[in-house]
């Protein structure tokens, strides 16, 4: 079958985009961002590889290709700030500092999973680090996050709330309603939209008219910007500005970041060959992999060498192996667990 035409092209500056942001940052900080993205990639790859063994009986939505947004965004947050996500939880959970063992236990349906095997991949929560909640219903977490921002504002807490949403999430009425309320009350919230151009297998242009998502958001009466989603530094910078505005009581911000998922909407592997998007489109985006281009930049700037990368890879691999072994050795829930927490005490 002939490939489809390319619909969505990368519009950023790739590696040329880093210099502007990197100059003022300490090397450890930059390397830390790289490590964080690489770690998420390797964890996702390990999940993907082992998924076929059928030990993780949970529907997964991988973030491979979208590491720059989760990491850049969370790098602008404090421990006390809260993150709410949709079904695509892995990136946000890990970038916010969620526990890897508890995540893998959850994916393996073990009783010591981060939510006791009740939620699986779509419901990764670690409240200790501000990974506050998720929803498997698209748009479901948006008003919840808005409510969290209302609570922070009313209680006078120095806390900003971020919600990671997709392009299709902006089509849900509740998202408009939440933006309206957040703008109305000047709430300390950042709506961070990862525009990966597809909702499952439906492209953006059969779902939305040709106007930008940013412009749509702006019409709700809030600050809105676009950012290159494969540039972790640009994402971090845009989120920092939005968070600073929220902390200063200047209200919500909407950020639109164009990114691409390198894998299928759900499950392991890519599904471009089924014909809903061009294989060449995915390949063009893979050429601007957020990790590879940042790594290339750091190397050319003399901040990262082969030995350092090898050491990083080794540590990450050890951590992943250990966490998988831990998960696989963990106990399953029993029937007595089923009816717990239907009601709060």
């Amino acid at each position, binding site marked *: 079958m002939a490939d489809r035409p390319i619909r969505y092209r990368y519009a950023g500056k790739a590696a040329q985009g880093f210099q502007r942001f990197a100059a003022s940052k300490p090397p450890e900080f930059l390397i830390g961002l790289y490590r964080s993205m690489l770690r998420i990639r390797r964890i996702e790859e390990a999940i993907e590889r082992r998924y076929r063994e059928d030990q993780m009986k*949970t529907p997964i939505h991988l973030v491979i290709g979208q590491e720059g947004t989760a990491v850049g965004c969370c790098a602008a947050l404090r421990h006390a700030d809260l993150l709410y996500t949709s079904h695509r939880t892995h990136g946000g959970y890990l970038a916010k500092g969620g526990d890897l063992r508890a995540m893998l236990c959850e994916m393996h*349906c073990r009783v010591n999973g981060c939510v006791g095997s009740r939620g699986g991949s779509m419901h990764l929560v670690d409240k200790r680090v501000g990974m506050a909640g998720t929803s*498997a*219903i698209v748009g479901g977490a948006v008003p919840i996050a808005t409510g969290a921002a209302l609570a922070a504002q009313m209680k006078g807490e120095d806390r900003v709330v971020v919600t990671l949403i997709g392009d*299709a999430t902006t089509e*849900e009425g509740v998202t408009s309603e939440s933006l309206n309320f957040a703008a109305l009350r000047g709430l300390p919230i950042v709506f961070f939209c990862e525009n990966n151009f597809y909702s499952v297998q*439906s492209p953006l242009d059969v779902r939305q008219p040709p106007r930008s998502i940013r412009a749509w958001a702006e019409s709700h009466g809030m600050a809105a910007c676009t950012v290159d989603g494969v540039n972790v530094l640009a994402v971090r910078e845009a989120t920092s500005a939005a968070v600073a505005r929220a902390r200063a009581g200047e209200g919500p911000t909407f950020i639109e970041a164009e990114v691409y998922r390198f894998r299928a909407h759900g499950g392991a592997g890519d*599904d471009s060959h089924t014909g809903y998007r061009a294989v060449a489109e995915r390949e063009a985006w893979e050429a601007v992999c957020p990790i590879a281009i940042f790594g290339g930049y750091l190397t050319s700037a003399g901040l990262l060498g082969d030995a350092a990368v090898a050491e990083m890879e080794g540590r990450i691999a050890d951590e992943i192996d250990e966490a998988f072994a831990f998960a696989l050795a963990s106990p399953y*829930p029993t029937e007595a667990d*089923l009816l717990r927490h239907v009601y709060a005490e």
Partner: protein
Amino acid sequence: MPWDEGLVNSLVYDRPDPGEGRVMSYVGAINEALTIALDSDPSVLVLGQGVDDPSAMFGTTRGLQDRFGLRRVFDTPLSEEAMMGVSAGAAMNGMRPVYMHNRPDFVLLAFNQLVTHAPKFHFMDNGQTTVPMVVWAAIGRGWGSGAQHSQAIHGMLLGVPGLKIVMPSTPHDAKGLLLAAIMDNNPVCVFEHRWLMKKDGVVPERPYRVPIGKGICRRRGRDLTIVGASHAIELGAQAAALLASEGIEAEVIDLRTIKPLDESIVLESLHRTGRLLVVDTAWATGGVCAEVGCLAAEKGFRDLKAPVGRVGLPDAPAPAGFTLEQFYYPDAPRIAEAARGLMRA
């Protein structure tokens, strides 16, 4: 073939004539019903998220857009409430939309239109407007679907006057009930259990309708009556086979339509067996189990030799992990055990 001749005069029958029809899959039967409806009536529309994507709504919509065009078979924005209202508005003005959902939970976003608008207009305007629309949803447990992707919403809808709800259990009924639903001048919900999608059965090729509001006896027995619909019939039949090996003869009544309920088929069977066990894939509380149980108490009281039994989900949200799922979902042995209990009572 114009709608009013082709389908109005089409056969209305309970089961295929022996010798008529071919063995085909449940999904194929739905596809055939949609094809017949689109072909015979230009006012029929098929819409829903991903109806034209490579997975084609479990395959039920495969090929329809190629054959009937983008204007009549189309993908939608991720806007369930709006699209439900759009369907109702189009139905009120001469169209017959079939709005499809791949999970029941997504219908919940549209309850305002489905509950408070679509089934009310005909009553509210004193019969001037009709709302001939079909809301189709794949329901039931998936694999690790958890609390937000497998909710059994049919019970919640039983208390909504003006709605009809059908739940086929065989490919034959999937075709015949869908055609009946599309022809009906009211909003009709068609709920198809995910676990039935891969079943095969005999399906006549020509157009026919299975009457809405009429149940069918799937198995004769003198000792007790097992009542249900959809996938519960398969479980009930398995339980009946287990019981038969112990000398207990269970009758299995397939409701096919859960609203309006075929009261007489239940009461007539109860009159003969004296024992009633209601089985549902939803919560036992407040749904089909509760309603049929109440029917027996109200109108079959004198026939009851034992208390009414019900087998449904416990009063807890669905867990995602597979061990917890096993404790949560009823199976044939559990139904058989409940039946033995009624025999002892």
